[in-house]
């Protein structure tokens, strides 16, 4: 197989081309509401700040941030799983707070700083300490929940650089892991914060 055409790149290419199709189609979008009230109605073309970059993007009024990130901006690191705010796979940081991107209107965060898992590694490709710690502790099993777990952990370490294992457990409690690798993720958080594992306590 051509090394340059990996499965991931192929899928990203398909997404990018369909984004182009969607945006050109939506130029013909006609506002079907009664038109009686115009007070405060949103502009569809907005500027989002994602991972420190300004991105102009055309967003439907009812569009969720997870859809905007994945389908319009090609940032597929943010996973959609339950799509109902019940699993945490889509967790992103909005002004340093963890949000479920599947349950956040894109328009409601247009003035805020959005940080996704793609924004964690440094410009030179060095992994974020938490990413490195998760690798060293073998935290992910299947890996699907990992971007969400990472973002929740990043939010925690930003507000509290040396959390106890119990604090880490609470901070990551909004992220489900079907492999049940919760303890391994906590090991990762403890390692990234330069602490011992502090195992032994369970329960919230």
């Amino acid at each position, binding site marked *: 197989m051509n090394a340059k055409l990996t499965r991931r790149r192929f899928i990203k290419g398909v997404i990018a081309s369909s984004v182009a199709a969607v945006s050109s189609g939506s130029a013909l979008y006609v*506002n*079907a*509401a009664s038109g*009686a*009230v115009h*007070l*405060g*109605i*949103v502009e569809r073309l907005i500027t989002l700040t994602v991972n420190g970059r300004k991105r102009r993007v055309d967003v*439907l*009024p*009812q*569009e*969720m941030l997870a*859809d905007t990130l994945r389908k319009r901006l090609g940032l597929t690191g943010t996973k*959609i799983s339950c*799509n*109902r*705010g*019940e699993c*945490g796979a889509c*967790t992103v940081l909005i002004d340093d*707070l*963890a*949000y*479920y991107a599947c*349950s*956040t*209107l894109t*328009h*409601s965060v247009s003035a805020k700083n959005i940080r996704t898992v793609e924004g964690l590694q440094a410009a030179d490709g060095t992994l974020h300490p938490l990413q490195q710690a998760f690798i060293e502790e073998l935290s992910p099993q299947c890996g699907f929940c990992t971007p969400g777990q990472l973002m*929740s952990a990043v939010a925690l370490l930003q507000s509290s650089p040396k959390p106890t294992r119990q604090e880490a457990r*609470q*901070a990551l*409690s*909004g992220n489900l892991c079907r492999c049940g690798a919760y303890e391994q993720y906590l090991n990762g958080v403890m390692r990234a914060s330069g602490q011992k594992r502090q195992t032994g306590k369970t*329960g*919230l």
Partner: protein
Amino acid sequence: MSAFDVMSDTELYQPVTVEDAVVLASRLAENAWLVAGGQDTYGWLKDRAKNTQAMIELSRIPELSGIKRSASGIEIGATTTLTEIANSKLIQQLIPLLGEAAQHVASPQIRNVGSIAGNIAQDTRCWYYRRGLSCYRAGGNLCYADTPEGMNREHCLFGASRCVAVSPSDTAPALVALGATIVIADSSGNHTIAAEDFFVGPDIDITRMNILKPGQIIVSIHIPADPEINVRHYFEKVADRNVWDFALVNIAVSLEMQAGKITKARFVCAGVDCKPYRLKEVERYCENKAAGSETAEGAARLAAKGAVPLNHNHFKIALMQNLVRRALRG
């Protein structure tokens, strides 16, 4: 029920002042849906179980957010998030009961966006109703939960009137126990109502959980707090999971103490009635008694007096009794 990834087309309004929001809400009336954190809203709209033509997003209105010391206590803006409330030093100092209740809601991510007004004004979680079935509450002529085959483990013990759904909020019982008042704005101005009277049961209005009408917006919540009075509080939530889950039963207790005796008691449970349920018999029993295991035993016997259990929720009676016992043993 078919599952959808996205919500159907709606308009979105983002007013930045309360006046604009009230004008929009009253002009659009039942065609609009008020959104703050949206965590109760998006599920309805994605599932197509309810629909709306427009959403009015309130989180851009600065005057609706924040926690302030007022002359008689604390004033909390309607869109203040549950995380802000749980972390507020002022609340931890003066009304820790509300902080604890906010800390027990859903998951960290939901608390980061979920507002206090949204938490108290949320709709019930009865899954038959949430599924979009045409039950009494949805305008039909049947209650699916209260049938011989109905799954009603999470449903009510008190106040059933055709509908057996419960109030799922964690902060609502705390606000009722604290004697809070709620300020509501509409086109005729501001109205203040006691938290206890904000909620309505199915006997009063089966289609709504509270008195809010289309065109009305919660502006703020006032909680009286006097640092001079010695108040003991207790909050406990029992749910199947520690995170996300709604309470099977929760209890919020506020006890004013003087010389070791309880002078005024408020016991409020959610998860047992369509509105926060005050345990008035327990409150009367506790007055002028010392908190301790003797009072706890007597009060526990009165906790679930008058309960009418359904097929699968008898366990809630024992839960209420045990929660009252633990609150008084403290």
